[in-house]
């Protein structure tokens, strides 16, 4: 266990010193904040429109369905806008993660320390898991730090919004996808021995990772509905208890698929490393 900790810890430190982590975190932050500015500018209503909205909402309040009763529509509007902010942050972050994390294992060969590592009593599995953990911790730290800064920035730029919904959207949409992107990038890069090739492999992995993300967005984006049913509208579903059950089920299935993809990739790379060392 201490070996695993040491590999993960030093991987994290090296990623920080190589400036990969600060760049990744910055990408997430800049992408999210810039898009929030766009959302704020595009959704800023005029004074007349404001008045019309008040009249309209007063008239229609009685006819609203149960899930819409007593809800501050301004908060809902801002929070729904944050859905696209999270997607933008996710796209920026995942591109960065896929391209920058691929070099983790090839660098050991490029710096000629691979042979030295092979002489140590570390199993292939420990080595691979340690490298993955190091990359994952860096990504998770970025999500947490970026999220904390975004919470403040969005409040300043956009105004009031539902913090609970934003927090779960941020965590549930970003975390699994970023972890999958990091894992696939690290594992795919392990077949090669130079940083340059690893970047090219990252370019090949990128379309696959982005496709996974785009397929998962409509599912994971519905997480807000589990807090307030009205946010089922974000993923174009009708708010209801049945919808919430469906959303929960879909999220579970998606996470299982992600775990399966990572596990399959890890097994292939681990098997390949064992075969290679046995030759």
């Amino acid at each position, binding site marked *: 266990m201490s070996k695993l900790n040491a590999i993960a810890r030093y991987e994290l430190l090296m990623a920080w010193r190589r400036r*990969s982590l600060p760049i990744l975190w910055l990408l997430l932050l800049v992408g999210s904040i810039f898009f929030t500015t766009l959302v704020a500018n595009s959704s800023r209503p005029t004074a007349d429109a404001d008045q019309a909205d008040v009249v309209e909402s007063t008239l229609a309040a009685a006819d609203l369905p149960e899930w819409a009763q007593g809800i501050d529509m301004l908060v809902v509007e801002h929070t729904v806008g944050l859905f696209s902010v999270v997607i933008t942050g996710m796209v920026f972050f995942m*591109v960065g993660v896929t391209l920058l994390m691929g070099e983790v294992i090839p660098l050991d060969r490029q710096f000629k320390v691979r042979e030295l590592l092979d002489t140590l009593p570390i199993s292939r599995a420990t080595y691979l898991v340690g490298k993955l953990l190091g990359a994952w911790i860096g990504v998770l730290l970025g999500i947490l730090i970026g999220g904390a800064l975004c919470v403040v920035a969005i409040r300043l730029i956009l105004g009031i919004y539902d913090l609970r919904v934003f927090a779960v959207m941020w965590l549930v949409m970003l975390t699994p996808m970023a972890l999958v992107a990091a894992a696939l990038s690290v594992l795919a890069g392990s077949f090669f021995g130079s940083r*340059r090739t690893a970047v090219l492999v990252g370019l090949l992995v990128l379309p696959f990772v982005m496709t996974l993300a785009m397929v998962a967005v409509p599912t994971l984006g519905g997480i807000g509905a589990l807090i307030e049913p009205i946010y089922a509208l974000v993923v174009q579903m009708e708010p209801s208890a049945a919808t919430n059950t469906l959303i929960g089920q879909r999220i579970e299935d998606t996470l299982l698929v992600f775990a399966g993809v990572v596990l399959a990739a890890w097994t292939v790379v681990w098997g390949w490393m064992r075969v290679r060392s046995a030759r």
Partner: protein
Amino acid sequence: MAWRFSFRAVGWLLALIGGLLLVARLAIAAANSEFIEGTFASFEVIVPLMAGLHAALLFAPDDEPALELLLAAPRPAAYLIYERLAVLIVLQGGLALALSVLTVVITHGEKLITPMIGYGENLITLMIIWIAPTVCIVGLCLLATLYARRTAFGVLTAIMICVAMAFGREVILPTFPNLWFTIFYLDARAVTPEQYFANRAFLLGVGVVALALVLRRMRDEEALLGYSEAKNG
């Protein structure tokens, strides 16, 4: 010898991928004339992206084998950039030019909309669409790779610029219309001819300035070796 090494260092894979994508798009347009306009737009997207990615791979000090040896040689270090850039221009530019000629011949440029000659068609118009963004992105990606010392940052720059520009046209421009001069994929119909040319001139200018900064950096051999970084731990 140096040229052969430069050709090997630059590689041809990205030019091939870009060429294949453009040929595929051209084949679609040849089969169905409704897609002709999209073919011209694909030059605007594919050529800069591929050239930017290619430029990012040209010279990264940390990934360059035998960098100390290259810098110790009597020939100036800037020659590395001149040679590799020339190979890049021949590969990417030559391919894009050849395919532009082919596109104009096959499609007769009937739906090519240009700011200067209206619904005319010619090779120069198609080239104006892709040359300025290509020069800009090549300069910026070379600069990013050189200053960050790693290929990955240059590649990241290329992709981020293209993503931002795609967003730029559809999302940023409607909100901040004054940013028209920075957008790669500017719709010639959405601005005046003067604005369109100003946009192309601005992009060319950015690319040229970035290339000048690259060549300036290549004169500083200690910086290329990463001396200051090593000194700071």
